[in-house]
């Protein structure tokens, strides 16, 4: 963990002192990047580092869906299922992705390449239906566009 703690220290240095609680989320994100998914013991680690109650970190960890608590594949596909996208056919696209990848929503492919998550609003209603793969937005989707996007991913 010492390498991680160095990164923690770096981040901490740019925050005002005595504002430990504000560092909870940045540290969770940092740790997620390092470890792929987070467990309760990671939350406790951060809590001890920041000297805040472990439950406070666990609350944040369980509240945010983007903080994965299970191992995920190399690429995480988050496809919107909220109303805007649903009106534009998102439900069909989710089914299409499930068929194409051979997994159900919330699962990871056997080769570990893709995890499929249905999420709530991605704030891209104007260009619905939308999905986010890792940190990239893909908008105005249709089935052939999805085929193309997945093909281009390594």
């Amino acid at each position, binding site marked *: 963990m010492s390498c991680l703690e160095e990164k923690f220290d770096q981040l901490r240095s740019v925050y005002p002192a005595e504002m430990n609680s504000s560092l909870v989320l940045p540290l969770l994100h940092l740790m997620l990047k390092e470890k792929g998914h987070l467990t309760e013991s990671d939350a406790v680690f951060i809590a001890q580092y920041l000297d805040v109650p472990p*439950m406070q970190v666990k609350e944040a960890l*369980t509240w945010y869906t983007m903080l994965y608590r299970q191992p995920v594949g190399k690429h995480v596909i988050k496809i919107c299922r909220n109303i805007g996208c649903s009106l534009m056919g998102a439900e069909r696209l989710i089914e299409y992705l499930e068929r194409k990848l051979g997994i159900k929503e919330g699962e990871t492919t056997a080769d570990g390449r893709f995890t499929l998550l249905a999420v709530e609003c991605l704030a891209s209603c104007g260009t619905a239906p939308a999905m986010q793969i890792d940190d990239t937005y893909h908008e105005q989707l249709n089935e052939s566009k999805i085929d193309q996007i997945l093909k281009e991913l390594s």
Partner: protein
Amino acid sequence: MIEITIDNKTVEANEGETVLQAALRNGIEIPHFCYHPCLSIAGNCRVCLVKVDGRPKLMPACNQTVAPNMVVETEAPEVQSARAAVMQFIMLNHPGDCGICDKAGECRVQEYQFKYGMAEPISIEPKHHKKKFNYLSERIVLDNERCILCSRCVRFTREVSKSAQLGIVERGSHSYVARLDAQPFDDPYSDNVLGICPTGALLSREFMYKSRVWYLEPVRSVCTRCARGCSVNVWRRKKHWYVRSLGEEKNITAYRISPLENPEINGRWICNTGFDLHKFMARPRAMAPMMAGNTVTVDEASAEANRLLAGATNPAIILSAHASNEELQAFKEKLSPRVQVYTREDYCPAEGEVVEDDLLIRADKNPNSYSVHAMFGQKAFSAAAGHDVVIVWGDQVDYTSLGNAKIIHLTSYAPEQETRADVLLPISTTFERSGTFCNFEGKTNRFEQVFDKPKLVQHASDLFGRL
């Protein structure tokens, strides 16, 4: 002082106070779940919504600070319908299993649903299910389905007991109260959350299914487990509900202990040791007088004690710090001129017990050391003083430290080691008499009699009259 109007009644409110506080202080009831006078304001349950003149929407009374000439209505039609709607929402996923819930009868959700809720749910969706038996610790079970997420317990652990061991995890209708998976809820004040929980979510595992609460009644008492002397309620069966055939021991069972509000001494809280007071009191008793290991009558034992005292050249007594002020006074008047007086701590901190903290727990594990020391000073017994008869008052006696003296032992509980006492006289416990203790700050606190004493047991104050 600010004057505000609540329901056409002019009431005086303190500056900075909330509408809810002003209303409650003036005897006006506004329903509330998440508001608790000792905790921060969460404002999440919404059942305290009231109409405030000049505001476009209903305001939560718990979070609305009073202002001069404010006009509040708590029973306006829109308030009533909002309340009913909030109750619909709170009951949306509540199982409504009052029939098998220990909290029934003293449950805020039940009370408000009955009073303000609608008879039928309007939702056609199936209820959301959560984990029902969630063991937070050896002492507490959490039923997540019954929980209404008022966060009182969470705020208690963060603001009062400071362990911060509880939190609300996940979100939306999936959220629930939880602790860390790796650490039980072992806060020394954990059981207070049972009392502040407005529903049957947090329940005592020890009291679980022992009795319906409406068979029980509270009796004012004082916790004897440390020098704080917290006010407690001891819950006994109501006379009306006495069992008259099998299971008569239920009639003399202390079912549970709960904190009794006493702003001078303990506020609204007690520690877990206090919550276990009834178990402490239920240890095996000394039930009959004994002489040299044989059971005798009260008269025989008293006569022998008198004979020993009359023949003694250098008698002594070791006082009990569990004796009440009244008993100490009786002793002072009747017996103290004739004997050398020593004091001791009947109970010392047990292994693993919290010795002392900043909230309530005191290092002296006896309730009345203050009065003993004030009346008789503080002097430990020494066998070297050559006493030939020693009266030992109280439990937990190490007979070997008493030398070769003849021993008259006044005790409520059966001695843990084999008794070497020449005369053993059983005396009543604090549950079997009324009286007062002075806590470590010298504050007097009164306890009432909960049960009748067993037949062969005597009150220490009566006993001194006979010796």
